[in-house]
């Protein structure tokens, strides 16, 4: 049996005495496409960083592909929020894409030909190969997002994590991005984290709502209760309400 893509067992996390996450449980099979939704400050990014091994849980365990996250970096792809990128940094598009290869042993001093090939393919996939010599600071927000995606792809990851993928992307690329993620999902598990319900495209296979704790539904649907709890009140318990398919009924847009 192949290991679960992600396994989060009773994870608690507090920062500076503040409880950020409590009792989070999550089990994701390989090949899933999970969207984690939650308002700002709900702990989404924290949960993401825990799954990436950037942070360590105060309590509980996390496994990615059956291993502790920091022991499987060569199989994990990470696309951070564009706002975290230092835009003055003197680095070219190609050099950023190559960073995705650093999880392979011995890349610290120099990259192999294979790395350049994979970085090139990744840049071509997001239509950024022609910009390869351009400094990262001279790109638009959407272009930079594409480069960050290419960087994650260059690793040939089996699980890809994305933080607010649509935040700085223009409308044109948004559609393209979803097609692209769908294609990626045929090869890798995809986890998308967002405060924006519009990430719920038809490609999302399951949804979880987060506000300190997690409400998980093993389908691309959210119950009214999940939304209410995650977005409006301090969460106390999970109620089983009548589920309705968000993707079909979402009329506010």
């Amino acid at each position, binding site marked *: 049996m192949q290991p679960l893509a992600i396994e989060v067992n009773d994870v608690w996390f507090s920062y*500076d005495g503040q409880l950020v996450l409590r009792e989070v449980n999550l089990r994701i099979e390989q090949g899933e496409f999970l969207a984690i939704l939650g308002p700002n400050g709900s702990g989404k990014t924290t949960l993401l*960083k825990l799954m*990436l*091994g*950037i942070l360590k849980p105060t309590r509980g365990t996390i496994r990615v592909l059956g291993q502790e*996250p*920091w022991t499987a*970096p*060569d199989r*994990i792809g*990470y696309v*951070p929020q564009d706002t*975290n*990128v*230092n835009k*003055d*940094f*003197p*680095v*070219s598009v190609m*050099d*950023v894409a*190559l*960073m*995705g290869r*650093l*999880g392979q042993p011995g*890349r*610290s*001093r*120099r*990259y192999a030909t294979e790395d350049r090939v994979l970085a090139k393919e990744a840049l071509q996939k997001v239509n950024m190969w022609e910009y390869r*010599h351009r*400094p990262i600071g001279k790109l638009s927000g959407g272009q930079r997002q594409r480069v960050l995606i290419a*960087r994650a792809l260059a*690793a040939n990851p089996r699980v890809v994590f994305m933080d607010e993928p649509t935040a700085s992307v223009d409308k044109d690329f948004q559609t393209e991005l979803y097609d692209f993620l769908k294609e990626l999902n045929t090869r890798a598990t995809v986890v998308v984290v967002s405060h924006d319900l519009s990430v719920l495209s038809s490609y999302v296979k399951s949804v979880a709502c987060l506000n300190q704790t997690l409400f998980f539904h093993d389908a691309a649907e959210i119950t009214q209760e999940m939304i209410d709890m995650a977005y409006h009140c301090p969460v106390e318990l999970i109620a089983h309400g009548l589920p309705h398919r968000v993707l079909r009924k979402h009329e506010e847009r």
Partner: protein
Amino acid sequence: MIEALQFEFMRHALLAGLLASIACGIIGTLVVVNRIVFISGGIAHAAYGGVGLAFFLGFPPLLGAAGFSLVVSTIMAMVTLSNKQRADTIVGVLWAVGMALGIILTDLSAGYNVDLMSYLFGSILAVPRSDLVAMAAVDLLVVAVVGLFYNSFLAMSFDEEFAVATGVPVKPLYFALLAMTAFVVVMVIRVVGLILVIALFTIPPYIAERYSGSLRGMMTFSVALSSLFTVIGLWLSYLFNLTSGATIILVAAFFFFASLLIDRLRKQRNLPLP
């Protein structure tokens, strides 16, 4: 300048300036892009504690400074990694405590008439051959470490969290960076003194950053600028009989403001751009 080079101390000074510029340009670049200028200033000042300790215990001052600032840099690395919120306060405290300790220890070292000024503002005109050898060794160390781990340093400086998620050993690299900073700081103390170290660390990379397409390019350009500043500074200080360290810094400052001005003019010309 040519006639000045008849003197051995001037030849040593020139060589010391150039050797310091190599390490300074490389480590200064990493210090600037990693935004640890304040930490490097803290290490530089705390190094005086090591000078005092060396006088007190009777071993070579620069060796004392190197050992002491290595310890201080390790403490600072631990503090900044474990408690980012309060790190600047603790760095500030270590900064002051190191200096105070150095002054008290030299007070207690009877018989020594310590020239405090030479540590505060440098003593580039009195560099013995042995120091040149030590400086070359530090250069070699810096070039080797940064060269061997260049891609990892680049990833860490550009996007630390991604680097961690990708398995780059960010913590050891950070300790190594601060340890190298400590060695380079002590080396630059010879040239411009511990008060002015920050200027030579930050001004060349600051100018270089705007004209560089890669971190490697920024390092190379910083080394070139730093060399230029020390050579011009030395020459002016010889011509007008001025304190070398301070003259070097003022030359650097002149180029710094000139680059700001050029930038502004360029921006004004390009104003119609969207």
